Structures are given as structure tokens and as C-alpha cells.
């Protein structure tokens, strides 16, 4: 605090490190990749270089874009249902211990059973493909929100709870004034994990659906391209999936920062 010029400088440094350093690594890797492909004369149907992949991305954009939109729609819908379901169930768990004790093991079972193993069954039973994909994505996305929010709702300051009792607060008031705001950092942490998981769930389900999912999302594009040995398009689809995941993560990180920056330790920059 004594040296006022030191702070902006260190902030510039941290920004450079945060954005510049990973960017530099990325560029180095891409250049090395392209050079290796060219020097070793690796054919494009074995390993295309970044430029060939970029070319495929532009050439096939008319089919990749609708697939991306499709996958993102499933992801977003699954996430919304996971948030609503996970949050409501967490509130239910927090309000009655016996409900938590009797239901939580089943939530765990749902979480630990690999989605690839459940997906074929869901696709057999559910006629509507979009609905089947949605269910798969929801199954993997909802647990982190449920479990994190439950912990958050239960970690309210005991003295604050006593205070609420002293003032004769009703259950919903304790929940709404004390427990829910206190659970926000936990919920947002869960949301950040679930965002990525919803995307993974949607992709995995598409893979399992395979040919049945004709005209659907990015995973189907990868399958289709692999049958035709269109390796550059496989990579292009892969990059779009990773890109979507990164955007989801960054969006929730920004939301986290926006909501917590005034009060929660995790979002506050330390001085010095």
C-alpha cells in the first residue's frame, strides 16, 4: 500500500501472465505441429496440420455450425434442468435430514455409474432423440450442483441461525435470508463443474446414439467424418467442442466473479 506505483505494474504483470503465457504456449505448439507435419511430410489423412484443420473448419462451416448449435442447445437445456433440479433437491435435503439420508445414496449411484453405460438404455427407452440426449447430459450435470448446494445450505453460521430463532424467523425466512445467500459460492462452484459436464454428457450420448443421431450434434459429425476418413473435419469438430467448453467455463467464472467480488474470499484480490 505504501508504494502506489507498484500496484498497477503488478496488475499488468498478472494480466500478461494470465493471458499472454498460455497464448504463447498455444502458438508455439501450433507452429511446431505445422512444421513437423510439413517437414516429415505426414499425409493429411493421418495427421493434418493446423492450417488444413482451419481450412476444413471454413469449408465445412455450413454443416459444423448447425451441429454446434444443436449440441449447445442440448447442453444449455440440460444445465438449466440440472440447476433447477439440483437446487430444489438441495433445498429439500437441507430442510429435512431424513429426505437427504434416504435420497442421497441414489444420487451418488447415478453419479458414479458411467454415463456411457447408461446412455444405450436411455436411448432404447426414450423415442425422442433430443430428449434422450438431454437426459444423459442432465444425469452428469446435476450431481455437482446438488452436492455443492447441499453443503452450502448446511454451512450457515450457527450464530446467525440462533439470531434468526431469537427473532422468531420462519423457516422460509431462514432459508431465503441466510442459507441461500451463504450457499451461493458453493452453488457457483458446482455450476462451473456442471457446465463442462453437461457438454461432455451431451457429446457422449450422441456418440452412443451413433447413426441414429443423423443430422444432430458435433459428436455425430466426428463419427460421420471418421467413416469417410475426413480427418481434418474430425479435428475441426473436436476444436469446436473444446472451444465451447472453454467458453462455458469462462462465462461461469465471470458470473462467479461478478456475484462474489464484493464479499467472498475466493473472488477478492489480495493486496501486497
Amino acid at each position: 500500500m505504501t508504494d502506489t506505483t507498484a500496484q498497477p505494474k503488478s496488475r499488468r504483470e498478472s494480466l500478461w501472465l494470465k493471458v499472454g503465457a498460455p497464448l504463447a504456449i498455444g502458438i508455439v505448439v501450433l507452429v511446431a505441429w505445422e512444421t513437423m507435419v510439413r517437414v516429415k511430410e505426414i499425409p493429411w489423412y493421418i495427421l493434418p496440420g493446423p492450417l488444413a484443420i482451419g481450412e476444413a473448419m471454413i469449408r465445412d462451416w455450413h454443416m459444423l455450425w448447425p451441429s454446434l448449435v444443436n449440441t449447445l442447445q442440448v447442453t444449455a437445456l440440460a444445465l438449466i434442468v440440472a440447476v433447477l433440479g439440483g437446487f430444489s433437491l438441495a433445498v429439500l435435503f437441507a430442510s429435512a435430514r431424513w429426505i437427504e439420508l434416504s435420497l442421497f445414496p441414489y444420487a451418488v449411484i447415478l453419479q458414479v455409474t458411467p454415463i456411457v453405460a447408461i446412455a444405450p438404455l436411455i436411448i432404447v427407452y426414450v423415442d425422442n432423440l433430443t430428449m434422450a440426449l438431454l437426459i444423459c447430459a442432465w444425469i452428469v450435470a446435476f450431481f455437482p450442483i446438488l452436492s455443492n448446494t447441499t453443503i452450502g445450505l448446511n454451512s450457515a453460521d450457527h450464530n446467525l441461525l440462533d439470531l434468526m430463532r431469537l427473532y422468531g424467523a420462519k423457516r422460509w425466512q431462514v432459508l431465503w435470508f441466510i442459507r441461500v445467500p451463504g450457499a451461493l459460492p458453493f452453488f457457483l462452484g458446482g455450476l462451473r463443474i456442471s457446465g463442462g459436464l453437461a457438454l461432455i454428457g451431451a457429446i457422449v450420448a450422441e456418440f452412443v446414439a451413433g447413426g441414429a443421431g443423423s443430422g444432430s450434434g458435433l459428436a455425430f459429425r466426428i463419427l460421420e467424418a471418421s467413416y469417410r476418413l475426413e480427418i481434418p473435419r474430425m479435428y475441426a469438430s473436436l476444436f469446436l467442442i473444446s472451444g465451447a467448453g472453454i467458453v462455458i467455463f469462462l462465462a461461469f467464472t465471470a458470473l462467479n466473479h461478478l456475484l462474489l467480488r464484493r464479499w467472498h474470499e475466493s473472488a477478492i484480490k489480495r493486496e501486497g
Partner: protein
Amino acid sequence: MPPLVTLSGVAKRFPNGTLAVDRVDLAIEAGSFVSLLGPSGCGKSTILRMIAGLIEPSTGRIDWPGLPEATRAGGHPELGFVFQEPTLMPWASVAENIRLPLRVSGASKAEADTRVDEAIRMVGLEGFAKSFPRELSGGMKMRVSIARALVTRPKVLLMDEPFAALDEITRFKLNNDLLALWQQHKWTVVFVTHSVFESVYLSNRILVMSARPGRIVEDIAIDAPYPRDDRFRVSDAYGDLCRDVSRSLHQAIAA
């Protein structure tokens, strides 16, 4: 005039078998400043929490003959409670923290705004209404906590070692401010502390407690006149009183 609150034959045994408080008989007059003084773990906080209605006595009873019948049922709008930690909501501004009891009781917005402003002025936090707890010092957080206890205009203020975690300078300042507010508003204060000096400075009655099980072993009147200020803190009279109370406390610990 009947006493404000009476404890008759009150004992508290916790589920793990510990007898925290035993055979406490006590009457507290309205408008008095009473300190419960004793070593850590002597059950003084337990007595305070029983008076607050946060825990039930195992035996005996607590009555409020000094309060009108209607206010005794349900929650206790007549009580304000200040914990050892500030116990604020970290996600809410100073004003929102102080407003909490009024939100619970469903006061109108206009009424709540007036009361919150009033409470902020009482504890000298003007200009900090929009600050967040983490931006405040320990002493200021405690002021917010006191303002929240005062915002319902309680008749009784229960304080559980509120200044124990503060540095001495801040603690003296808050002692003075608390005394000034008490003289102005004439609430009843029940103050838990393990500091002889603090209890003598603040109260007109000190209840010395012994530990295991917690019992009240001595009831000392402190007759020094109010207003008390920093001159009282360095006076011979204050020194003598502290020595007497200290001796009682040592006897209570040795017993």
C-alpha cells in the same frame, strides 16, 4: 415494580452429561447493567442463552414479570443479542445487515429505513451504510453487530463477551459508547465477560460465577456513580473496586 426477568432454580445439563449451570436463582431489575463474570467454561454464556430462549433450562424456570403478557409469546422482539463474533452476513452491506431483524418481523420499508438510519447514527457508523463487512475493522464490525441488536428498539440487550476479541484501545472506546447509549436509553443490559476491569467499569451489579458446575457465588453492587468516563478508569475508587472483585473471582475459581 416487579423485576424484569427472574431465574428460579435454573440448571442446565447438556446431552453429553455435563452439568453446565446449577441452581441459579436470580432477579434482574429493569434498567440495570448486570455483568456475569467468571472463568471460561463457567456457564455464563449458557445462562445468557437461556435468558435469550435459545436453549431451554433442564430444570427450573425463567419468567418475565416485567414484560407485558403479549410480547412474551413467540419470538422475542424485546431482546437484542450480541455475540462474541460480529456474526454478520458477509454478502450484505452494513445497512442490510442491520435491517435483518426488521425484514424478519416484516416492518414496512419506510419504517425500516428510518430505524436503520437511527441505529447507524447511534453506533457512529455514518457514511458506512453501503460498505461490506470485510471492508471494516474488527471494532466497526462489532458496532454493526450492536446496531443490528438495537434496531428493534429492544428493552433488554444481551451481550456475550462482545469485546473480547478487540484490542484494548478499541475496547475502551466501545465501552464508553455503550455506557453512553445505555444511560440515554435505559435498557437493561446483561453482559457476559471474563474481564474484571471491564465488568467493574460498565456495570452496577456483578454476578461472580464459579465453574463446574456454573453457579453464581457472589452478587456485588458497584455503586460508583454514572456517567463513568476515562477519569473513572484511572481513579482510586475504580482500583479498589477492581481489587475487591478480583479477590471474589479468585475465591470463586479456588472453591
